């Protein structure tokens, strides 16, 4: 048809050249084929009547109109085909639908050809279309019939179906219903039919195919899974074909076939094949299948791997030509011979040697067997080879180890005895036995186990016998053997029952002479005992800890210290005995020693037990290194130095006290000497004057002065006496003193004084506050500070003394604050509490009050501080020690 048309086009071209346009128009008009000539703008230039008729353009003037106008649109494919034509490429035939003016669907076979002018220039496109609607409809009808016929001709399993689009009716034939396993009266529709398909891929596929067929008129044939009304899962092939009449879709017809059994059997044979292949290929044996002439039909992967060959290098080759056979010709001949024998039904098997790809000889257990078909004829041969390298090696090894065993047996320092289990008769022994017992092989046959065993009692024998009967072995256990000369020695015996071929029960016993190890053991025990005695009687705490700081050995001193028995201590760590802090410190030390491998020596530590008692130790921890040079733990040695520590502390305190006292004493001595000396110096001087004085008046004056000096001396002595009384009064009796009351007392005693000076005391001390003090001192101190505060008042203002108290650690602090003159501490601070120091031009100042006050405070283990600003006032703070 194609050729035909090309010829036709060629003819046209010839005819077109040199022909007047009118003629051309006329000619084209009459062409029996629907033909249109369009220019480059897709405008119709010439057109045949048939073209106009076919496309129902009867009432329209077609010439000069554009294709888009005529057909509504030019689709993408057509547009491309037209463009190609303008480039000189003719399009192939294609069938297109066209909806006619009457609404009927038409089918056209199209062809587009380039249109050349006389100069071979392309000036447009020649469109040819053949109305094939009729033909297509006939074809479709025929197909439907054919399908239906085919359906009937198939035995039972192809059903048919028909869908009438107009009436929307679906009809199933009996077979189709049978396949769906529905009752014969079942009436399907499209939805229910589609719902039979398995949800998912199956249902989607069929729905899509059906939709395509309705929408685009495309036929389908799909294979899907379907679930029958009875719930069986089957696989079907469903076909569908659109049916047209006069270009209009009437509906679909199709077939329906259950292919489940076929798929099942296919699957089965595939699986079998796969199984066979996998066995064939994964076997450790070399396997080949030969025909009866010795040609390889198949060879497995093991063999290929071994030989390093590809399948095609082996298959179709002769068995004896393979490179792995040793070269001599007789091998080849031998192989030919066995193949002939096998093909006659003989089974061959022998151990042979083949060469691997590196020419190494490999021992192989080789066999060749005939394979029979169902009729009992030999149709191929199965050649198998199993590498027995390991087996051969194992055999050799066995021989070697037997030899080794022999040597061991003879040379071993352990005695081996083979005896009859029932009778005790000794059947064999090694040279070690001869050496240790003095018996020789000559005694074999006469000697019994009972003869060499001495102390084994009847019950022990019975027990051993029972043990052997239940477990086939006994021991190791200690026994005593008697030598030939009658002497005894300890042995460690164990045995194992073996049966010999005749069913006789034999006993293999090994006996190890342990006289020496017995001796060593005893020595060790003794040494251990000695060590234990030593450690236990050391006046030190000794312990050994493992890496986790668990105690694995403790001596008696350590046990006494923790107050527990050994079983309560072993395996425990410090956290079990001491408070958390002590235990952690100890653990940290342990880790340091273990990790650094450096001993901690003579460190002073304090261990606080759970009950709160604390002990000072001088501890050493030494890493315990095993024979493999690894740290196994540590050895700890602690010396209880609590008493020592306590004494040391006491000594310290004593030294401190003494040194303070001493300082005070020296200071006091200076004061005493100074004060006494100044008076005596005056006496001396005045007496000197008196002796040489002549003037009576002057004499009187001097005598008056001497008296004054004498009074001063007396007063000084009294003062000193007071100070000495405080300083020497060691056993002070401190009692709870209510400060509030004491202040009130002072206030009462000073009533007149306060009134005179218009002074006020503000007592801000809590009424119930008590301090530990010597009551007389407390009163004296308060009196002194309060009178001082008023004595050194600021004349410009009314004196106010405020007394407060607060707690500060071990002290109760009493503050006495005034608004007096204040004192320049930078200048006088160092001398403030000194004896005979005065700082104000006050005739009352004697320079003794603060000195005595300070001494009293210190005698009560307190202290005093001062804070002052000139012109503002002074605050004294008295610290009463609440602790001691």
């Amino acid at each position, binding site marked *: 048809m194609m050729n035909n048309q090309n010829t036709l086009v060629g003819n046209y071209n010839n005819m077109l050249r040199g022909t007047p346009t009118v003629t051309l128009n006329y000619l084209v008009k009459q062409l029996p084929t629907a033909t249109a000539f369009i220019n480059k703008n897709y405008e119709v230039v010439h057109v045949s009547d048939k073209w106009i008729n076919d496309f129902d353009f009867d009432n329209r003037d077609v010439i000069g109109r554009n294709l888009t106008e005529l057909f509504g649109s030019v689709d993408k494919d057509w547009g491309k085909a037209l463009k190609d034509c303008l480039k000189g490429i003719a399009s192939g035939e294609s069938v297109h639908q066209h909806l006619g003016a009457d609404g009927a669907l038409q089918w056209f076979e199209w062809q587009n050809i380039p249109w050349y002018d006389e100069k071979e220039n392309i000036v447009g496109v020649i469109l040819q279309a053949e109305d094939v609607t009729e033909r297509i409809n006939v074809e479709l009808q025929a197909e439907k019939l054919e399908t239906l016929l085919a359906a009937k001709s198939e035995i039972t399993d192809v059903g048919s179906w028909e869908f009438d689009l107009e009436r929307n009716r679906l009809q199933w034939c009996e077979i189709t219903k049978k396949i769906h396993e529905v009752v014969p009266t079942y009436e399907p529709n499209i939805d229910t039919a589609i719902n039979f398909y398995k949800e998912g891929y199956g249902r989607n596929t069929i729905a899509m195919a059906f939709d395509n067929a309705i929408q685009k008129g495309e036929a389908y044939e799909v294979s899907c899974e379907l679930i029958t009304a009875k719930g069986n899962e089957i696989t079907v092939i469903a076909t569908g074909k659109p049916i047209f009449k006069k270009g209009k879709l009437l509906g679909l017809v199709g077939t329906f076939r259950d292919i489940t059994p076929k798929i099942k059997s296919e699957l089965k044979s595939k699986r079998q094949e796969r199984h066979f292949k996998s066995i064939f290929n994964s076997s450790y044996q070399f396997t080949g299948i030969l025909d009866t002439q010795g040609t390889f039909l198949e060879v497995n992967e093991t063999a290929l791997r071994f030989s390093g060959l590809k399948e095609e290098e082996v298959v179709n080759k002769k068995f004896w030509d393979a490179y792995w056979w040793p070269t001599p010709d007789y091998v080849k001949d031998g192989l030919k011979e066995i193949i002939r024998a096998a093909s006659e039904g003989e089974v061959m098997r022998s151990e042979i040697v083949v060469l691997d790809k590196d020419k190494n000889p490999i021992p192989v257990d080789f066999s060749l067997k005939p394979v029979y078909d169902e009729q009992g004829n030999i149709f191929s041969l199965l050649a198998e080879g199993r590498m027995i390298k390991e087996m051969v090696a194992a055999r050799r090894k066995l021989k070697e180890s037997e030899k080794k065993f022999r040597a061991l047996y003879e040379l071993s320092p352990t005695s081996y005895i083979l005896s009859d289990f029932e009778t005790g008769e000794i059947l064999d022994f090694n040279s070690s036995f001869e050496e240790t017992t003095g018996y020789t092989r000559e005694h074999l046959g006469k000697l019994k186990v009972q003869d060499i065993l001495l102390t084994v009692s009847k019950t022990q024998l019975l027990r051993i016998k029972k043990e052997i009967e239940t477990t086939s072995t006994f021991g190791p256990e200690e026994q005593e053997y008697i030598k030939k000369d009658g002497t005894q020695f300890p042995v460690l015996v164990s045995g194992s029952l073996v049966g010999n071929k005749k069913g006789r029960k034999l006993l293999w016993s090994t006996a190890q002479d342990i006289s020496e190890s017995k001796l060593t053991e005893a020595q060790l025990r003794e040494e251990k005992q000695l060590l234990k005695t030593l450690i236990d009687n050391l006046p030190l705490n000794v312990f050994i800890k493992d890496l986790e700081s668990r105690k694995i050995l403790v001596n008696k001193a350590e046990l006494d210290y923790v107050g527990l028995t050994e079983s309560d201590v072993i395996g425990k760590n410090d956290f079990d005995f001491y408070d958390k802090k002590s235990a952690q410190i100890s653990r940290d030390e342990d880790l340091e020693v273990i990790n650094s491998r450096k001993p901690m020596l003579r460190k002073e530590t304090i261990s606080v037990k759970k009950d709160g008692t604390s002990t000072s130790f001088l501890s050493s921890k030494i890493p315990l290194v095993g024979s493999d040079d690894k740290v196994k733990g540590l050895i700890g040695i602690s010396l209880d130095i609590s008493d020592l520590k306590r004494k040391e502390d006491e000594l310290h305190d004593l030294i401190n006290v003494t040194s303070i006292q001493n300082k005070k004493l020296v200071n006091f001595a200076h004061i005493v*000497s100074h004060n006494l*000396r100044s008076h005596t110096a005056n006496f001396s*001087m005045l007496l000197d004057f008196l002796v040489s004085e002549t003037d009576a008046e002057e004499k009187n004056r001097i005598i008056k002065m001497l008296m004054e000096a004498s009074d001063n001396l007396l007063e000084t002595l009294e003062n000193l006496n007071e100070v000495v009384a405080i300083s020497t009064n060691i056993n002070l009796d401190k009692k709870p003193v209510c400060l509030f009351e004491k202040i009130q007392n002072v206030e009462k005693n000073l009533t007149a004084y306060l009134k005179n000076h218009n002074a006020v005391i503000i007592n801000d001390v809590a009424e119930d506050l008590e301090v530990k003090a010597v009551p007389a001192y407390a009163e004296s101190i308060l009196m002194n500070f309060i009178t001082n505060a008023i004595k050194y008042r600021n004349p410009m203002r009314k004196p106010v003394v405020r007394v407060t108290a607060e707690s500060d650690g071990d002290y109760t602090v009493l503050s006495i604050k005034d608004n007096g003159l204040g004192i320049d501490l930078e200048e006088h601070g160092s001398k403030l509490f000194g004896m005979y120091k005065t700082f104000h031009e006050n005739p009352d100042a004697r320079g003794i009050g603060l000195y005595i006050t300070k001494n009293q405070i210190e005698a009560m283990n307190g202290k005093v501080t001062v804070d002052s600003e000139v012109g503002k006032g002074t605050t004294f703070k008295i610290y009463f020690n609440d602790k001691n």
Partner: protein
Amino acid sequence: MTKIKSVCIIDDDPITVFGIKKMLSLLDLAEEIKTYVNGKEAIDDISKRVKNQETIPQVIFLDINMPIMDGWQFLEKFLELEVEEKIRINIVTSSIDPYDKQQWERFKEITHHLLEFKNKPIRKNDILEITKAA
């Protein structure tokens, strides 16, 4: 022997002051004798004199233990005064505290004045010796 123009005694003990004064007048060593009962009075007066360019004592008898301002505090202040003339300062004390001796040594080191340390009692012979212009 030339008379000392001005001698001053700084001591809170009236008996000591009396004694020294008496000895000085017996020996007729000084034209003028001034007395102060503590260091503060003395330094206040002497400072004023230095400022007014009046006569200042050429010989000072200085007690250590005094109220308000003791001998050492006085000395500290006195050395701060701009006195070019070399003054004799006789420290007269009954103290035997090594601390006082150390103070004396320390002050001797840092001053151009003449510092003497005398324990009480002072005898006439002593007075004669220590009442000279430095």
